[in-house]
């Protein structure tokens, strides 16, 4: 993560975190993928404990059940159905992945109420530089959709939330492709109680699709996952798919 961070974590919980954007008015795009580094230690009593047992350090506890599938030429369908064995990516640094679902810009001091200046943008930045420098702040929050540890991508909530004041970076297209190989994140996103979960899901699918350079197969696979999620809610499925297809 050599590049400059786009934000810094200022509030964290297990399922989402808030970060302050480095640039005023320039948070990461709605529905885009961001990451926060973490120490990479999985729960010693949980998953990693099994992995750390002597002699089985290389084995995935789920390998035996996944191995049932022949997996030459893995399709998204196979991935959805869990038929694809986990791949390890040694170059992957441990990180928590999240999808931006909200961004706000407002006074840094929440007690202070802003007033209108009735000036155009250029004039305003010349006359009131303090606004952008320290009076105003842009922050965004992101829904945690997974993490990576030991070179593996996990599509579930990390054992611990990210630490405060860690830098937030945008995910690279390569990372986006990896973390969206399985569609479990769609369930996490659509279950998140937010006013615009349909919008988040659609935007995030568009991002993932763009990271693939536009892949119709991927859109179909994601759509199928949504169709399974919204079995009883065809209207919702349709609303999302309309936003995706644009």
């Amino acid at each position: 993560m050599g590049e400059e961070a786009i934000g810094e974590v200022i509030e964290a919980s297990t399922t989402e975190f808030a970060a302050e954007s480095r640039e005023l008015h320039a948070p990461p795009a709605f529905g885009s993928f961001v990451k926060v580094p973490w120490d990479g230690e999985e729960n010693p009593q949980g998953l990693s404990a099994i992995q750390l047992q002597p002699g089985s350090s290389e084995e995935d506890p789920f390998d035996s059940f996944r191995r049932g599938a022949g997996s030459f030429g893995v399709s998204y369908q196979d991935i959805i159905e869990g038929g694809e064995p986990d791949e390890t990516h040694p170059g992957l640094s441990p990180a928590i992945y999240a999808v931006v679902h909200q961004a706000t810009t407002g006074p840094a001091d929440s007690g202070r109420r802003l007033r209108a200046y009735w000036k155009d943008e250029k004039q305003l930045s010349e006359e009131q530089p303090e606004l952008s420098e320290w009076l105003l702040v842009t922050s965004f929050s992101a829904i945690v959709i997974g993490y990576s540890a030991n070179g593996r991508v996990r599509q579930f909530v990390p054992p611990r939330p990210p630490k405060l004041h860690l830098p937030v970076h945008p995910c690279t297209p390569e990372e986006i492709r990896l973390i969206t190989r399985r569609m479990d994140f769609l369930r996490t996103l659509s279950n998140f109680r937010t006013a615009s979960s349909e919008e988040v899901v659609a935007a995030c699918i568009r991002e993932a699709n763009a990271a693939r350079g536009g892949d119709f197969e991927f859109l179909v696979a994601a759509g199928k996952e949504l169709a399974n999620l919204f079995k009883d809610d065809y209207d919702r499925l349709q609303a999302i798919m309309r936003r995706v297809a644009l």
Partner: protein
Amino acid sequence: MSDEGFDKSEAAARREVGQIVSGSLAKGLSMKLNSNESVEDIRAGKFVVVDGEKHQFFSMITDVILDTSAQGLLANPPSRGNHLMRQVLSGTTTYGTVELRPMLMLPKDRGEPDSELRPVKTIPGHFSAVYTATAADVCRIFGDEALDPRYFHVGTPLDMDTPVCLNLERFIERSNGIFGKSGTGKTFLTRIVLCGIIKNNKAVNLVFDMHSEYGWKGTVEGERAEVRGLKQYFGDRVAVFSLDPESSRRRDAPIDFEVQIPYSQVTVDDVVLLQNELNLSPTAVETGYALVSRFGEQRWLSQLLGMDADTMAEFCESNNVHQAALSALQRKLRVLAESCRSFLKDDAEIEVDDAVKQIMSYLESGKNVVLEFGQHKQPLRYMLVANILTRRIHECYVKKTEESLGGDKPKPRPLVITIEEAHKFLSPALANQSIFGTIAREMRKYNVTLLVVDQRPSGIDSEILSQVGTKITYLLSDEQDIKAVLTGVSNASGLHGVLASLDSKQQALVLGHAVPMPVVIQTRDYDDEDFRLSMMRADRPDELIERDRERDFS
């Protein structure tokens, strides 16, 4: 997704098409079609294998259904141009459900002592994978012609090239039926089956060939004007008899024997069989028997035909017969005698040997007999001749079988009698009187069975239909005919849809005694190069044929 239970090579040839989601032993199984499979590739009648935990279930597709998990979708379907939405929905919210009828099960643990095909007694568990059948499956179930001469290739399953074989030994054990609308390919299949029986020496055949299609050559729709008949394939092993030598000469078809029937061979029962055709009154039977008791079995007909008014009055008086009934019977039988004049003759006029004796001697020596009717193809003549000949051959067979039971004589060679327009002989009203009814019901005890070829199975007595061993059914569209064919078949409901959806040509449902499970086949071509080649192999050395005969018939 699991390929456990199949050998590696087998698993490679299989393609998973879906998973079992519900079902019952009584009503069959429901399979959810995999989302990457097109509903249109799934045809009724197709043969699939369900891979259960302990057994493989060989099943037939009986119905294909479009299903959805969201009713709201149906009220508001995606627009035609929305390919993404259509693809998303297909296999998830909208999917195909396929109804399967499990027919046979095979334990996966082949080490078990009774690891053979058995009728289904249970069903596979939830989410068992369903695969397309492979060539190995078809061979395992229907046998392989190359390995066992009992089996004879009659066609291929839908969408496959592997032969489906009839077990000929089982086939000739019972009476069989070939049904289908006119022009579906009944005659072709009958020829194929007859060739199989002759080639593999499983039985001798007597074919009542109404339209002169079997003996020397047959006609065909399309480019080729004709196909080879049995005689051209098997030479000396087939003898062609003709009622109408003139017609055979015109068609340039060699015949071996001309058939003439003396009046003395006609019994009252033969005439009764024609009561519909001759429009006989019920008293005609009584009148006929009065004549028999007065003049005897041999002479009643010639006497009746020769009566004038005086002798008639005298006969009526002395035998208590109504004169009007007698003269009506005489009138009608005169019409019959006149229309059959060229082959039905007074005993004194008969020029050739007794046809029945000739036919019997041919049959006894293992030769197959095709009786051509030439121009005499009207049902009246066909029925009369077929009935007279069959009745006497039946008598011979009963006698021979009884002799074999009592002493050292061998059982007679199994005989298959092929009749066309069978509903005329086997209608509910006549089935009890015609000899064919008797044969269909009980003659397998005497080694005689029928091969019934008919386009109107609903006209056949239901008791007889239920006794038919193997039914090969082409397309039937009449509801009654379909019902009739499925009489006596368990799980008939599933097959109903299959039968109604057959192609109009060369596609048939085979079910019954000679196949382990019902199967829809594309029947093989008759008289093409492959067929000719496979028949050539029949030309084995005589000693081999003789040895087979010893084995099969002693």
